[in-house]
């Protein structure tokens, strides 16, 4: 299958290793991966702030770029939800509504793509460590992806997965919310990080780098040594 990558802007700039991890895993599974270099951002920052015209302008660019793709794999549950759930809403009664729906239908968050499209749960990864998984809210609730990342992690050799009690509780990132209401965002992150620390895990893994940026930021300030990794980085390890 010809797979086209959507690497959202902040992954591109801050966490390129997540994108490289996805490339490695997909190629290891025998697929060819394409990356249209004109892509930038899904438009979520504008959309969430209420600036729908601006969001639409950015989204239209990506819709054009990914028009001919067979399947689009996106490196973030949150940006995945933007494309899969919110593009159709953003373009409702718009001349490009059909195109938005088409792109939504062929776009998949990375773990979802592996499990539901490629039907793979064992990607041949090895990562001997004790880890806990944080559900990004968009992947969990907008896309309903509770199981796929866990199925994949359960097949990683040497990995011991321990669930934290607050796995489904928001980390407090929420995009611009994190800087518009830093005290609330930080308080939410503190609850999350205590829950992570209680598991005694060496790593917290997620399918959203934005959550991990928030979690890492607070763990650092709390002086905790728990490390953060994106699911793709774990699955790329052999």
């Amino acid at each position, binding site marked *: 299958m010809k797979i086209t990558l959507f690497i959202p802007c902040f992954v591109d700039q801050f966490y390129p290793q997540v994108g490289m991890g996805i490339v490695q895993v997909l190629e290891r599974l025998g697929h060819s991966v394409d990356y249209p270099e004109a892509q930038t951002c899904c438009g979520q920052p504008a959309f969430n702030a209420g*600036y729908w015209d601006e969001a639409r302008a950015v989204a239209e660019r990506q819709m054009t770029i990914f028009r001919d793709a067979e399947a689009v794999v996106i490196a973030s549950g949150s940006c995945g939800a933007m494309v899969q759930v919110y593009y159709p809403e953003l373009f409702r009664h718009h001349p490009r509504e059909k195109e938005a729906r088409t792109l939504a239908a062929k776009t998949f968050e990375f773990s979802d793509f592996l499990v539901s499209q490629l039907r793979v749960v064992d990607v041949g990864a090895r990562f001997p460590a004790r880890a806990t998984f944080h559900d990004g809210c968009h992947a969990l609730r907008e896309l309903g992806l509770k199981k796929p990342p866990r199925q994949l992690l359960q097949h990683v050799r040497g990995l011991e997965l321990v669930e934290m009690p607050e796995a489904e*509780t928001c980390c407090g990132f929420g995009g611009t919310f994190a800087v518009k209401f830093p*005290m*609330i965002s930080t308080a939410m992150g503190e*609850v999350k990080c205590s829950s992570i620390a209680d598991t005694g895990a060496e790593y917290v893994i997620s399918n959203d780098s934005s959550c991990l940026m928030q979690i890492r930021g607070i763990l650092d300030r709390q002086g905790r040594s728990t490390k953060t990794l994106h699911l793709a980085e774990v699955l790329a390890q052999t």
Partner: protein
Amino acid sequence: MNAGAKEFNEAARRNTADLRQRDRIQKALAGYYLKREDYQNRFPDWAGARDLAAEIKREAINHLDRYLDEFASRLEARGTKVFWAPDGQAARDYIVGVARQHKVRSIIKSKSMTAEEIHLNDALEQAGFEVVESDLGEFIVQLRREPPYHIVFPAMHLTRQQISDLFHDRLGSEPTNNPEDLTMIARRIMRRKYCEADLGISGANFAIAETGMISITENEGNARLTTSLPKIHVALVGIEKVLPKLSDLALFLPMLATAGAGQPITCYNTLYGGPRQPGESDGPEEFHVVLLDNRRTELLADAEQRDALHCIRCGACLNVCPVFKNIGGHSYGTTYQGPIGSVITPHLRGLQDWKHLSQASSLCGACSQTCPVKIDLHHHLLHNRRYAVRLRPAPVENCLQAGLAFVMCRPRLYALAARLARIAQPLSRLVEGTVLDPLRAWTKTRSLPPMAVKSFHQLWQERKKS
């Protein structure tokens, strides 16, 4: 930033810094989660029950005019006086008028968030009437002269010790940490008030159109006494409380108890259909139902957000909301706290003054997932944000968003901006956390990751060449 937003920010800052209160709320809700899950699982099909409840409320709200007429005419047929209040002022005036007309001496009141919404107690007290809250939690916050902390658990933020101190100060009771003793102290006072009161005021959980009855659900039995001992009963009912059929209660009563309190059903469930009828030995001589609009019809006119009127005020969205759990109920400054409050307050009290509540959310969606009547709460917060931008865009954010969109539509400009940011990065590190730091909203409490040495774009290009 307007005054309301400023107040909210200050309260949120103060309350998130109160670790003991945050811990108390988390602990108080831990038991609720377990019980709710247990009783939810006893429903043969909770997901199906939610679908059905949403469908019933959709029918009721979409034909509200018809159901309200049916409800009112059946009540009137049994001698109830029905008053249609377009706003809070009209409702207050009517209820104060009833109290004056009957020269009542004392008023007892059971729990009603709708009465909180229109500040009914203040109006009655200003008119010279004494009002005593008969719900234990409400009685406690009334003594403290503060609004309810949570729409279902009004005093959940207080410890037994605080309540004991409060009773000691205000009622002269002996200090005690025993919940039963504390309840008995309040009960002794209330029993006397029930007998003295000549006007009882209640809210309603549901208004049944088919039979012309209001349904009140409670755990303490106080609403029954409030509504049946005094010779006049006034029920204040938001127009969205309508259910088409009596049989709908078979779903809604257990659902409200489960979602709201983690109970299979509340201890007391009562239907009220009119004043004392000829030949009946008890019940109030007069029964008034005040139907309150107070801008609910404006929400009704909004096809996109109309389902916010489905709300049965169970409070489940507050209980799962990480924002509510960390800032607490009083930070909101609204009658209705948590996600539902953030959705409806801008509609009921003005978007410009209350839009900050829709922004104060990470949009995690836990509220929508838990809502028993399937209100799409976090999507409504998104819609409110869009309305707010349309109404009065903020100049600075306008420029930022327009600039960001401009860059994101131009890949080469995006790459250039990223390169410049990498160059500027060491400078921002110099001022990190200080007042000069443009990113201090983040860096004050969190470390900031460095930008990657090479972006994915660059890595991909290198890979292609090799």
